[in-house]
């Protein structure tokens, strides 16, 4: 397998992980709105369903993108595909 194919395979795997996490917090948990509301987990005292819609999922997305960017940079570095700074 060429260097480029390996790079793409790793990139694709990272995409799948990222999208899986994204799916859980953007779609998955909202199948259970009522269960979240009844849950005894109450971040900062808010009902869990309310908290996730107004802060929880949103914050996780922010962190997820930065994590994804960091990982992708590592993959690019590994295969020597990092851009020159002055490009």
């Amino acid at each position, binding site marked *: 397998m060429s260097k480029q194919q390996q790079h793409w395979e790793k990139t694709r795997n990272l*995409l799948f992980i990222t999208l899986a996490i994204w799916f859980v917090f953007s779609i998955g948990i909202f199948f259970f709105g009522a269960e979240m509301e009844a849950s005894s987990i109450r971040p900062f005292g808010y009902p869990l369903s309310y908290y996730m819609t107004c802060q929880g999922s949103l914050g996780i997305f922010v962190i997820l993108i930065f994590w994804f960017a960091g990982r992708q940079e590592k993959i690019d570095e590994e295969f020597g595909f990092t*851009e020159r700074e002055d490009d």
Partner: protein
Amino acid sequence: MIKGKFIDNLPKVYGIYTGGFLVFIILMAIAEQAGMTAKMIGIFFVSFTVAIYAIIGYLSRTIQVDAYYVAGRQVPTVFNGMATAADWMSGASFVAMAGGIYFKGYGYMALLVGWTGGYVLVASLLAPYLRKFGCYTVPDFIGTRYGGNVARLSAVLVLTVASFTYVTAQINATGTIASVALDIPFGIAVYVGLASILLCSMLGGMRAVTWTQVAQYIVLIIAYLLPVFWISNKMGAGVFPHLMLADEVARIAELESQFGLGTVKNSAADLATVPKGLAGITKAHSEVNTTPWKFISLAVCMMAGTASLPHVMMRYFTTPSVKAARRSVGWSLFFIFLLYCSAPMLATLSKLSLMDPTLPTGIIGKSIAEVQAIDWYQNWNQANLMFISDFNGNGTLELNEFFMGGKAVVLATPEIAGLPYVISGLVAAGGMAAAMSTADGLVLAIANALSHDLYYKIIDPKAETAKRLIVARVLLVIIGFAGATIAALEIQGILGSVIWAFDFAMSGLFFPLVLGVWWKRANAQGAVAGMLLGLASGTAYLVWVRTGGAGFWGITQLTFGIVGSLVSLVSMIVVSLITKAPDSATQKMVDEVRVPSGKTVLGKQH
């Protein structure tokens, strides 16, 4: 004149700007104490900020193609994040969103999740690859990746439909705010708004829009957060409202049942007397009040729409590198997050201010005559954004007898909560900044697609730079005027049009863009089928539901993008597979796009 050195000095320049703006707010506060009228404060706030944006727009004028289309590709990560956040957060986010949460609660908050979750798709599926491609516009990518003028033209069509739907809503919002703040009729205010929008974008294209958007972000975020923190502290609800309003949310639920929310209903005859556009509180504040599918389908549409809207995507063409584009998406979402996580808090504080009889600002439970005598009630009643009526004739204002317009939650809450008027002026300036920045991005996206993809790439490929840029500017003015003319007709509310724009973009562009990077086998015929059939079926479904059709799968006029994008996906795959695979040059191009290093696929100047 500001190149190079200006880029290096960005933190300093915008630091001084922010400081200057804070000083301006303080000066206005002093002027208010000294007796300046509320109207004058509003006029000062709006005209001062708009003048600043116009100056920035003028200073960023350019005669270079790559500066005009992609700001010379030298916008640093964090600043591009701010510009994208302003580009993204429109009048709908700023003015309408807290209102929507106030009235509809949990079901509406699907928009919060959708409008942020979409950025994960932008970062992982598209932005870095399109940046590597080196295109000027979104149709530029489609046209080059798939090859052929038909594909390019189809992309221009989808882009124009989606962005134009969106931009009329934004010009409408600038008009609404300008008419309230400057006290002029809406029909004229729309054109005042348009003039300010064009001032920012015409001379400098993307470069001018970038630097004004950063300035607009700073104004809008201060204007949004300051009242939230102030009200929360004034009410004693918590120093840091985002983490400390749990008791208030619980208190609202308690008051809701005390005031008979959901049990006391208004008769149709009573409701007919309420002015159009105003609503009462009919849904619980924090309770889960919608089915999972309704919530998820709306969120999915907003997410896929986010990843297909060209005015957002083209912001990532302006970063210096692919790596910067990726990180920039993270910063964009961070800056958006600051406002979005505050909107539910504002809705909570606003509702509690009005509802809680133990607070001095509470009006529910007071006598009707007493409420009618309140200054702010009279003002907002006159502006057609507030209404009370003693339906049951007991002389006391009940929860079901109080009606408010969605915009009033953001615009009127500072006044209701007893903050000085200077804050209301600030909020008006913030709303103006939000609507202007988005309108700028959208008008530019349409004009660029038409001037670059239609005029230069298809009609006259030999056109000289000067002529190209003149065409771009003329188109900008024409599109702006067309948008303002339609906005003046007020066909659909701000929020409705915005949601439609997402569905249109998702129907026609989502899969052709994503598969262009992630599926080598996708070819021109498939992409054209995907764009045109997707847009057509989505539009047909919308028309069908609007004209009384029953719909299926619980898909409404707000989520018609699901139909459009599914048709788009299926037709794109089927047509691609039954026609010839793309040639080896195209396949190689896709390979190149997938590697961050090396030259962009399209040249620096094209």
